[in-house]
């Protein structure tokens, strides 16, 4: 029998499909044909597999080799099929017992000397494999850290094909690398107690963390906008296991796990440069559709510094993910949906020279320039931002009293408590965060106190706020109420929410 088979996974976005790798070795002229819509990197697998096998002391069959990756209609890409092809080939030539190879999933790129190299997307592949009933997987050693997150499966890390074959033939493993499953603690170097003054902005950050409200910080350079944004992940509640898996899977596909520990439970913090393109922001690519910054910031913070400097349409491309919590990217190779539920933090200078604050005495911009600068943040986008805070330059007194400020750990405790209150309140509802309460529920079940409503309605009558703005303020008021342990938003909570949204005339 000169047929061999092994299993692998092809990823389309975050979704994995089980691929059966079949190898047939037939009499005929020596040759190799690879079927099943491979891309260029996969086409080249032949030479990698051949060299890797020969250099590991195996014999390459001098016959007609046909490799088929099925289902055949699906486009397959990348180098991760090297290992399953090699295993199926050895099974076909009878070099390894079929029983062991057939029900195990293999992922990995082969180096010419037989080492197994790490690949992208190992975690989402394992999740898909588990869903499809595969229980054993062999992955590159380099990806073992993220692979062990999938604790429901037996995951075996291998760093070269010789030791893998030894294991397949005898059941013995030459070395076993055990990874401690530790939850990395949040980065201590970024603590909120470093932020001097800026009580309003710090309060806004706390409210933002409680209810998932997007935040705009406006202020001159050097006042702490970036400092505050960088410290936001540290006060967000730690990710649950499912959330952490999801985030790690996304980063695994993007190949950016080096920047983030795969076992981390800290919310991700992504800050694309303001020259980023739309594709960099939302994701894309011609062969393989990769997640963009907004998906990498899923369950975390997307911070865009110098937001008005962003290219035309880049910020507005975030409108759809802001609304739906996911982004669908359509290209000729297919369409892919990536999750993108992030907390958007925008930072902006008040004007091109950055000095227009307070009385704006040092500002050198014309009044028209000042007006035009912030109007680059489009109306529809600004409408989705619940909190707009001005960050004022610091005075001498505020710099002195810095050590009185709360640490990130304290704020996080408050945030977690407030979120618990919200979760209990929404236990029967499909949403979880205050920023997600639908407007209908705000008008009925989740209305603030009567006095607060009177205040809001009078603002509405004076056309100071729109109907949508009214609902946004009510949502923010709920977060403030949760922080203050009020059962329902009071007049004071609502007024603070009003100031947080309408305080800046942007």
């Amino acid at each position, binding site marked *: 029998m000169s047929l061999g088979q092994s299993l692998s996974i092809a990823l389309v976005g975050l979704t994995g499909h089980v691929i059966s790798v079949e190898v047939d070795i037939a*009499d005929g*002229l*020596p040759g190799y044909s690879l079927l099943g819509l491979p891309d260029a990197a996969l086409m080249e697998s032949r030479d990698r597999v051949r060299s890797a096998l020969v250099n590991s002391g195996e014999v390459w069959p*001098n016959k007609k080799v046909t490799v088929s990756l099925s289902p055949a209609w699906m486009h397959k890409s990348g180098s991760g099929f090297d290992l399953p092809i090699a295993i199926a080939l050895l099974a076909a030539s009878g070099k390894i017992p079929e029983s062991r190879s057939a029900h195990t999933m293999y992922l990995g790129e082969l180096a010419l000397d037989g080492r197994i190299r790490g690949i992208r997307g190992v975690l989402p592949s394992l999740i898909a494999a588990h869903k499809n009933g595969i229980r054993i997987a062999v992955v590159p050693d380099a990806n073992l850290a993220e692979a062990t997150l999938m604790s429901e499966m037996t995951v075996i890390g291998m760093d070269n094909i010789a030791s893998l074959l030894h294991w397949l033939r005898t059941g013995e493993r030459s070395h076993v690398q055990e990874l401690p499953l530790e939850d990395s603690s949040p980065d201590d170097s970024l603590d909120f107690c470093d932020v001097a003054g800026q009580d309003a902005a710090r309060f806004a950050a706390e409210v933002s963390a409680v209810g998932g409200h997007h935040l705009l910080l406006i202020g001159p350079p050097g006042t702490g906008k970036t400092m505050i944004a960088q410290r936001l992940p540290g006060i967000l509640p730690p990710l649950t296991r499912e959330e952490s898996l999801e985030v790690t899977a996304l980063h695994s596909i993007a190949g950016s796990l080096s920047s983030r520990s795969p076992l981390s439970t800290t919310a991700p913090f992504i800050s694309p440069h303001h020259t980023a393109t739309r594709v960099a922001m939302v994701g894309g690519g011609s062969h393989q559709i990769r997640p963009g910054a907004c998906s990498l910031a899923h369950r975390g913070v997307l911070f865009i510094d110098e937001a008005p400097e962003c290219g035309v349409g880049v910020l507005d491309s975030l409108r759809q993910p802001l609304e739906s919590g996911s982004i669908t990217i359509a290209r000729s190779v297919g369409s892919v949906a990536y999750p993108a539920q992030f907390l958007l933090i925008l930072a902006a200078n008040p004007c091109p020279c950055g000095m227009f604050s307070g009385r704006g005495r040092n500002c050198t911009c014309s009044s028209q320039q000042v007006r035009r600068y912030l109007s680059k943040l489009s109306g529809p986008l600004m409408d989705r931002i619940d909190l707009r805070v001005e960050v004022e330059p610091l005075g001498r007194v505020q710099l002195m009293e810095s050590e009185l400020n709360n640490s990130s750990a304290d704020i996080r405790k408050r945030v977690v408590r407030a979120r618990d209150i919200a979760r209990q309140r929404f236990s029967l509802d499909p949403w979880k965060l205050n920023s997600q309460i639908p407007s209908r529920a705000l008008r009925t079940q989740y209305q603030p106190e009567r006095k607060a409503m009177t205040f809001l309605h009078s603002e509405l009558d004076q056309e100071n706020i729109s109907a949508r703005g009214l609902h946004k303020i009510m949502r923010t008021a709920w977060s403030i109420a949760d922080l203050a342990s009020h059962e329902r938003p009071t007049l004071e909570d609502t007024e603070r929410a009003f100031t947080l949204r309408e305080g800046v005339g942007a």
Partner: protein
Amino acid sequence: MADIKIPDSKKLILGQFGEDMVVKFLELRGVRILERNWRIKEGEIDIVALYPNGTLAFVEVKTRSSLAFGEPLEAITPAKAARLQRLSLAWRACHARRWGSFQIDCVGVLMQHDGSYIIEYRANVL
């Protein structure tokens, strides 16, 4: 006439030896040899043979004295195999008769240092 390669005598002798061994190998198995080194402008057929069951076989022989440049059979590329097929059509055209089925066989002969040799016979490769 720069594109005509003139093989040195060593290679010619090696190739000739390999083909002789294959002819012997076939005759031992009752295969009739119809023609050897049939050459036209497009190229050459090493051996034309007739199997006992009436199948016509066009045989390409590749002989090598070491594995330094790969297996002998690897040297028969798909393009060469396709040319062999064209040549077989030409041969049948020149020998008008009702032939039965036909096939292309490729043979690798690997010379060992001690003078022995290994014949790898692949029948009907196309």
